[in-house]
């Protein structure tokens, strides 16, 4: 058995090296502290680059940072090793990408969620507030109690942007709706604390909420479970999480980091990569809400029509969703 595995893996390596022979690029990705299996943001990127690997047969270098100092170290190392494209993940890597991109002016760099202006950096930003607006509408329309909840991960501006969009969407659908907001914690462990997520959710249910939106990475798992146990509704985040608890998961606010990561590598491979800011909102299908067989029965035709109308209005500019980053406050 072992021998067979060895042969098989050797054959696979051989195969990969054959298919990856001609004029291939060397891509690399630096995951952030959450790790590539965080069931959320980093994992989305991982899925995207894995898809790239599967389709093209091109292997990529990867690194998961464990402390502040390693971000710059890892990105510089990737550049030094001759990576054609270095993809940084998360706003925390912005400064490191900016610095190393300055040191390697001929290198190509990309960063997801980070705002970096440089000719050889492609900064990919998502309009999370637009997607959150739509799921906020759905929550308010579905709620029987007129109270909806929001559970954030770590209390940082990015998560407040989710919460602010959600609040606006809920108020848009029902101006008298009450929105309860809680953050899970103040340390990075808040991204992966399902127990606390569940407790916060139960607390929100006790205050009358019957739909809860989690923007909290791995913590969301606890939020969804609590909603299922209580027979209430929950809304997923980042990837389509509708399948986790059909009947409980009302919808998911999708943020297509996987597509962004995949496209970054693909463009670099095809020579169509460009620096600059890429902003992905509803219009670009970078964010959105998920409707599939798992939640079809929960969303009425009337709700769907209203949300789709709002989506078109946001794209057309008829509805302006305030961005928390715009002045660092939520104008309501």
């Amino acid at each position: 058995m072992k021998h067979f595995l060895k042969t098989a893996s050797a054959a696979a390596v051989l195969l990969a090296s054959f298919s990856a022979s001609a004029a291939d690029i060397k891509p690399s990705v630096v995951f952030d502290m959450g790790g590539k299996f965080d069931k959320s943001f980093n994992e989305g990127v991982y899925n995207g680059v894995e898809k790239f690997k599967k389709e093209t047969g091109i292997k990529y270098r990867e690194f998961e940072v464990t402390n502040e100092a390693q971000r710059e170290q890892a990105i510089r190392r990737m550049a030094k090793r001759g990576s054609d494209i270095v993809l940084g993940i998360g706003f925390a890597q912005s400064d490191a990408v900016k610095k190393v991109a300055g040191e390697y002016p001929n290198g190509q760099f990309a960063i997801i969620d980070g705002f970096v202006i440089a000719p050889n950096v492609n900064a990919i930003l998502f309009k999370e507030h637009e997607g959150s607006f739509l799921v906020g509408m759905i929550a308010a329309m579905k709620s029987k109690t007129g109270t909806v909840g929001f559970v954030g991960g770590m209390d940082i501006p990015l998560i407040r942007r989710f919460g602010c969009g959600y609040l606006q969407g809920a108020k848009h659908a029902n101006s008298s709706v009450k929105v309860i907001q809680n953050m899970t914690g103040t340390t990075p462990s808040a991204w992966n604390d399902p127990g606390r997520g569940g407790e916060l959710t139960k607390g929100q249910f006790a205050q009358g909420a019957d739909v809860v939106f989690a923007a909290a990475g791995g913590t969301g798992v606890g939020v969804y479970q609590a909603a299922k146990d209580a027979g209430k509704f929950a809304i997923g985040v980042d990837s389509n999480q509708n399948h986790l608890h059909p009947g409980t998961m009302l919808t998911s606010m999708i943020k297509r980091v996987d597509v962004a990561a995949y496209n970054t590598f693909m463009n670099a491979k095809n020579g169509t990569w460009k620096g600059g800011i890429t902003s992905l909102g509803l219009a670009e299908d970078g964010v959105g809400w998920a409707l599939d067989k798992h939640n079809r029965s929960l969303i009425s035709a009337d709700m769907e029509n209203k949300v789709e109308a709002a989506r078109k209005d946001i794209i057309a500019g008829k509805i302006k969703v305030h961005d928390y980053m715009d002045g660092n406050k939520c104008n309501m």
Partner: protein
Amino acid sequence: MSSSPVKPLPRWIDVGLVPVINIVIALLVSGLIIFAIGENPWEAVKIMAYGALGFDEGIGYTLYYMTNFIFTGLAVAIAFHTGLFNIGGEGQAYIGGLGVGLCLLALDTALPIWILLPLCILASGLFGAAWAAVPAYLQAYRGSHIVITTIMFNFIASALMVYLMVNVLIKPGQMSPQSVTFAEQSHLPFMSEVFAWFGMEIAQTPLNVTVFWAIFCCIALWAFIWRTKWGFETRAVGHNEPAAVYGGVDPKRTIMIAMFISGGLAGFVGLNEIMGVHHKLLLNFQFGYGFTGIAVALMGRNHPFGIVLASLLFGILYQGGAELAFEMPKITREMVVTIQGLVILFSGALAYMSVPWVSKVYNILAADKPVPSDSISAEGEA
């Protein structure tokens, strides 16, 4: 040891050979695990050693980690000497960094670096010390256990920092909860810059001149513990509090002094990180150093010299581990943490596991030699 003919181990074996044996055992077990996941253990050790000590960039990162570990290791050690378990190094380092950050945000352009540096040393030390002083007061005068209070204060520190960074000190209009970057003239020189003054070129790493301050702190703490009245009092309280009281020592005051120094030392991590490396205030710069300091102090037997060696070892493990994760795709960062954990397990928790065997071998080898004279001091130390 119970049986009477067994000779006590000489000091060089107790503090020199036994730790080395423990590390070798830990590496052997790590090697087995690496072998089990299908990588070459010998290759892994080579990558780790080369990555940590083989070239200028690796050495720079190793010594940079060492700097932080020295501060937190010393912080834990001084508390240990007083019989206190300070688990709050994490929070004290965090608040120490806040002190440096506030100092630089206010004065980075107003004052030259040679005035700023002592000010920032003071700020980081005082902020860290103040954060330790509250649990110390609660322990000394109210009897609240310091293990509980210091660990609680870690959470309070992180909550306070998040509040300040997200709402107050953030540079407006950006995603990251970070302050503005301090003026260039207030940055501590990186070692690559120091070497450049002498015409030598080395790779740029986070290693900066704070490492000299760390070494100075080791010497100063050694002098404090073993050469001053207060140091004697802290050890007296740590060894036997009633006896210390009988000898005229005020344990409450001693606890306050020891924890004040402990918090200050942990606060210097903030000096290294904020003034030396990042040049702005940000979140989680202290992540993990406070807790690793406990292992460092244990392994260094609470002696400043031992702590330098243990810090160096942990620096090697951190930097070498990162290289390992980089070079061997199968070895994930969780695997690296496992290796670090094994080293802590064998040289911290199981530190005396190998002593009976070593002692047996030593007794066979040294059967017909007289008892070495320095063995008495070794016994006293243990």
